[in-house]
């Protein structure tokens, strides 16, 4: 029983991390049809920025500052990439993929050149390094931090989408971008905003990933991105609740399989992906966003 509880909460923590990355990916793809392979690079750079901050300041305050700084770094990076690179390439998916894949390779290499290839320990303040007893299991506090953060983000994103004018523009744009402009709305502003939100969430994921794994490395973002893409494919492009459920499922399946089927977690995720994709009715050729 206590093993199951620990596995479940660890899986939920991992799912929370996936959700933070995947929700940005899904919004960006849903609105702009951009597959942002650079998303992992946003995460990695933010994680290192947060790490430097946490090391310098120290303690719980240092971590809070690191979270803030990491999130801002992700947002800023995403805005620059959107304005400088992606903006010129709307409607040219091949070039977009080349550019974002290029970034996803170049940025980790750059990080590696500056801070080395080895993984670094992420300073976890004492307040968060302990465990909490839940039904007999000793669960690390950081798991709860991740779950709480993901829930808060889910609520905030939902509020943004359902209550704000930009949220309305994003939902409409996911359905029919051209028609949004035909109502007199400059949809490119929504593009930048959605990129910024996605980048901020990736940045937050970088910080929380450091907390979750207790370490960071130049390729952490890239490997997490793979699972985030799986989450998006399962959950549906452009659907935030779908992505949240899917992130939960992927995190749990991965943890359970890792333990009960002896290290087959990643394999189980692939099986889950295949099962979902095969069970889904073939998409209409007409296109449109689900």
């Amino acid at each position: 029983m206590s093993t199951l509880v620990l596995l479940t909460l660890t899986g939920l923590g991992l799912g929370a991390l996936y959700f933070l990355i995947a929700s940005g990916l899904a919004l960006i793809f849903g609105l702009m049809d951009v597959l942002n392979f650079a998303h992992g690079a946003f995460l990695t750079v933010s994680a290192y920025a947060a790490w430097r901050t946490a090391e310098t300041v120290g303690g719980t305050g240092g971590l809070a500052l690191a979270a803030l700084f990491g999130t801002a770094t992700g947002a800023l990076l995403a805005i620059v990439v959107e304005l400088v690179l992606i903006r010129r390439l709307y409607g040219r998916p091949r070039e977009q993929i080349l550019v974002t894949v290029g970034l996803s390779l170049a940025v980790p290499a750059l990080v590696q050149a500056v801070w080395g290839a080895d993984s670094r320990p992420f300073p976890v303040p004492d307040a968060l390094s302990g465990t909490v007893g839940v039904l007999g299991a000793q669960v690390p506090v950081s798991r709860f931090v991740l779950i709480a953060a993901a829930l808060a983000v889910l609520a905030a994103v939902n509020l943004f989408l359902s209550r704000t004018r930009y949220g309305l523009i994003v939902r409409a744009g996911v359905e029919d971008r051209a028609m949004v402009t035909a109502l007199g709305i400059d949809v490119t502003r929504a593009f930048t905003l959605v990129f910024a939100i996605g980048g901020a969430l990736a940045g937050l994921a970088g910080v929380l990933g450091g907390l979750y794994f207790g370490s960071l490395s130049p390729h952490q973002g890239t490997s997490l991105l793979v699972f985030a893409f799986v989450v998006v494919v399962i959950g549906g492009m452009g659907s935030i609740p779908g992505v949240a459920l899917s992130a939960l499922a992927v995190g749990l399946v991965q943890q359970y399989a890792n333990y009960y089927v002896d290290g087959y977690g990643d394999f189980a995720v692939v099986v889950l992906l295949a099962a979902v994709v095969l069970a889904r009715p073939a998409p209409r050729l007409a296109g449109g966003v689900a």
Partner: protein
Amino acid sequence: MSTPAGHESPQPILSVRDLRVRIGQSSILQGVGFDVAPTGTTALLGRNGVGKTTTVRAVLGLLPEEGEVTGGTVRLDGEDVTGHRTHTVVRRGVGYVPEDRGVFGSLTVAENLTLAERAGGPHHYDLVHDLFPELKARRAQRAGTLSGGQQQMVALARALLNDNRLVIVDEPTKGLAPRVVTEVAEVLQRAAERVPVLLVEQNLAVVRRLARDAVVLDAGRTVHTGDAAELLADRERTTSLLGVGRHERSERSGQAEERPEEREQREHATKEST
């Protein structure tokens, strides 16, 4: 056949000259030119595939990715807007009801209208609710679950919500049952009392009722401009320019054909929104 005296004296609200458009490798428009008078309804006519929708989309800067304007000018109230981005053209005061209605199926009726509210201007909800009382009752309903006729009402309401200098409506009666066609025509008639309308329409009964001026395209060119009633009275001309025989056939069998189409559109929209 020139425009009758009195219609041409004030400056046209929209003036298109020698418009040329290419989409991919094919040249779709090869010289479209016409004026839209600052009052009343101007009908843009022509057989299927002659370039009516392309003309309207080129005016609004809404051509598909691989399309481009290769020549000509578009002036809105005297100002050159050729090749301007869509939202800047629209903000100058253009309402647009596209051929496929362009209603956001996953949004509610109220959200569709809110989205259409343009900054800085009054929003005529009183007018919209007066013209479409049904939309007020259905404001919380997802637009994708509305019937085809109701969706057309949403699309028209969005275009009439703002103070516009011109409203462009592309085939608003396509695929609608005769009773709904009449409703749409009534709405357009009332709209045209407030704002000039450029109307793409294949239903000649509707054109006869609404339009004062007519522009006819054929194979990407303007082949006729003039008084609408005069054109429609000229049997030979309407047959050669508009292929009227074909049209009347589809009008007669209208109701039986169109019901399944409406249902399919509704299903399609519902699927998209899930």
